[in-house]
């Protein structure tokens, strides 16, 4: 994170807020993707169903 902050600090001043906004938006999108996936996984039964024919 610090390395990213330093990299952002080195960018020209007008680019910085734009880049931060784009990265923030992308981070929000990524978290949404992960949350959606987590919702799917937590809904699946933890024990697999084993079929036995009688």
């Amino acid at each position, binding site marked *: 994170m610090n390395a990213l902050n330093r990299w952002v600090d080195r960018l020209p001043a007008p680019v910085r807020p734009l880049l931060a906004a784009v990265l923030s938006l992308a981070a929000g999108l990524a978290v*949404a993707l992960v949350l959606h*996936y987590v919702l799917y996984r937590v809904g699946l039964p933890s024990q697999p169903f084993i079929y036995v024919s009688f």
Partner: protein
Amino acid sequence: MNPPDANAPRARFGWIRPGWFLGGLALGLAGMAWLGYRSSRTDFHPDYIRIYQAISPETSYYPTLGEMESIVRAQCRPDQVLVIVGGNSILQGVWQPLGEVWSQRLQALLGERYCVINFAFRGSAPTDGGAVVAEALRKEFPRQIYIADEAPLTGVGSWGPESYRFPFWQAYFGGQLLPEAARDARVRELEADPVQRRALREIRIADAFGAVFHQNDWWNQVCYRWLCTIPSNLGPAIPELLKPRKDYPDQEPDATDPAWLARRYPDDVLPAEMQIERSAALFYHSRGADGRWRLADATRQDLSSLFATAFPAPLKARTLMLIGYDSPYYRGRLSPDEASRQQQAYEDTLRLWHEAGYPAIAYGRDFNENDYGDRIHLSKLGGAKLAEAVAPAVRQVAQKLGYIP
């Protein structure tokens, strides 16, 4: 203008802009919900024939209600009579390879005016899977017939084993099922039990999220088409685990293949199979004064009560129940007394289904050993005979209900 102070404290969230981040989060969730909704309305099983291992709970793949409804919409037209096959592994077509599944034969026999879709799951009850899909589609496909099977003298509840309740809960909490007092009463029974109540609450919450975000619809599509992240016995570890489920074909063996014939009726399970064979009527019948087998009143009442509430009243007349005889390899080993008692069990079962308002037929009494792959499952030969027995019954139901003039 003052130059930026390099030593000034950084904003609370570093380079993250909370407004943009929350906007991205909201946009992302909305986008995923839209993709999920699209998935629930998309048939991504273009060559669907039946549920098989790679798309079943056996491999931790839980087809959603929307996924199954989409299969029906893609394959059937509303002007056709929709015939949905539910029930268990027998009707799924275990031992019948693709191309020779009994439901495919049924489709061929019934012709273009009917559309047969097989949603039977292994170990499933008559009121699971296909029953839920048919009921949920009753308005889109009002001319529909549902086919399920069950063993003789076996009760049928409003829903079956826990592993297959997922479409039921989706439809129930999603308001897609008919109002039915018996089902509601059973749900209230679950809610009265502290352990069950907690499980039910979790299901209700998951289904509430699912109704908005369609997470199972989307990730099922991802798993089936592109990349699966669910461990299963198909591929418990990477890289097999990641293979899309479409790359695992339906490889149901052919019971008539010489490689399997020798293992069809193994000697080491004969005592256990015969015990099951005898048990169909063992506990419920006794000889009457006239020498005939009589079903115990308590059993009769229990079964009548269960059959009466298994399906909502408006759906009974279109629900065709099949009661299958086991392989003659085992039936032929019953004593005459046991055989007559078993026959009485089949007759009593059919009568009880009829009295409860369902069309019902028995099949398999005249089948031979080659028609079976084991005690209960039919080979492709038996499957073809089953289709020939069921097709006239389906036509009869269709005519009685006015689907076909």
